[in-house]
């Protein structure tokens, strides 16, 4: 336990679901982005998985819509301390997108429209734990929340769920992404409070 701050009681805490350490519950949907919100025209949108041998697998928006989708209900945890429980999304599982991709890579570097990147182990994208999501709460995903499509990897801090996702590069090495190069954790497990490098 940290040192006690005199006179701090915190807000009344009805017993509820447990949150990761240092997180608080919000009903809002705050936004964390490093710059302006990119606007991506649908007719030029594409999603590309590039393997370590430079093989490219591409999907247009129409291709993506034609794939079977899931509607996961998940908890999300932002490194700026808010958590939001029971959010419902619609998207295509990375298992589906990866099914024809032949790779021996261990890591993924995710790229977004607007230049954002984030890194994570490839295994964290598989086994029903990650999606390319295009609907939130029954609505098309709004641009400020990453629309038309974002990555959704809810078991890691939400900056790993890259907004405006445009592709994934599969790699043998773990290349730090945008926030990771600015001192944030390479893995980012909220339950182990891996916010910053060295946590």
């Amino acid at each position, binding site marked *: 336990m940290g040192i006690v701050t005199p006179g*701090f009681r915190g807000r009344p805490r009805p017993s509820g679901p447990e949150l990761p350490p240092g997180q608080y519950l919000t009903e809002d949907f705050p936004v964390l982005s490093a710059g302006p919100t990119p606007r991506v025209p649908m007719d030029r949108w594409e999603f590309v998985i590039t393997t370590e041998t430079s093989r490219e697998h591409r999907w247009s928006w129409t291709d993506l819509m034609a794939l079977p989708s899931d509607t996961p209900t998940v908890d999300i945890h932002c490194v700026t*301390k808010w958590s939001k429980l029971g959010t419902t999304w619609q998207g295509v599982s990375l298992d589906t997108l990866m099914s024809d991709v032949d790779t021996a890579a261990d890591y993924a570097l995710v790229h977004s429209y*607007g230049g954002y990147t984030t890194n994570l182990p490839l295994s964290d994208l598989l086994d029903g734990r990650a999606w390319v999501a295009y609907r939130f709460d029954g609505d098309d995903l709004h641009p400020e929340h990453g629309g038309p499509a974002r990555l959704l990897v809810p078991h890691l801090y939400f900056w790993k769920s890259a907004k405006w996702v445009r592709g994934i590069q599969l790699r043998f090495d773990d290349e730090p992404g945008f926030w990771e190069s600015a001192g944030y954790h390479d893995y980012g497990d909220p339950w182990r409070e891996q916010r910053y490098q060295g946590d």
Partner: protein
Amino acid sequence: MARAAVPGRLSWRVGRLAEARQETPTARTLVLDVPGWPGHLPGQHVDVRLTAEDGYSAQRSYSLAAPAEGGRVELTVQSVPEGEVSAYLTGVYSTGDPVELRGPVGGWFVWRPAGTQPVLLVAGGSGIVPLMAMIRSRRAAGSRVPFRLIYSVRTPGDVYYADELRRRARDDAGLDVTFVYTRAVPEGWPHPPRRIGVTVVNTNGWPPALTPDCYVCGPTGFVETVADILVALGHDPRRVRTERFGPTGG
């Protein structure tokens, strides 16, 4: 679970309130003594952790408002309605009391005093805090890079650092300050209250051809609006750095 300290690891430090200043009826500047503070760049923030008697703790981020002076750091906290941490820091927290903090955090929303590009700062409400750190650092470093600040507030009484901004706008060569009032204007002001829009940014910012570095900070809606305007005016999105403080507000 003990873990060896690795270089660059951000560990929790104890800070004590040395001094406090009321900026507005609802915003308070906290000057903290933090032994061993490693220093920081303007634009970076700290995580503050409060712990109650029963072990419950709450963490929030606060921008550093000024360059570090040895182990002294300054934060300015806006009290938000029903705010768990801000209400404590603006109301209860007293001189000599400890809080835990760690940082500095953030390597993107920073201005480096060695920078040479003109700078545009656009603040909404408490979003002035990290931008004020940039203005103060510019002066402290003797930088001559031209700065323009556009500062949107609800009413004249909501301006943080009001006297200092007035003085700096007069004395810091190359610093221009423009106010936008959204609810009430000072006596004799040439416009009725208005929200920030293309005209204000176009008139009081820099032309995109000068490739200025733009820093936009405030509530999410404000930052979205201003960042969109800057891109629409032709600024390179990669030169528009944003920090979003929270869901709602001025």
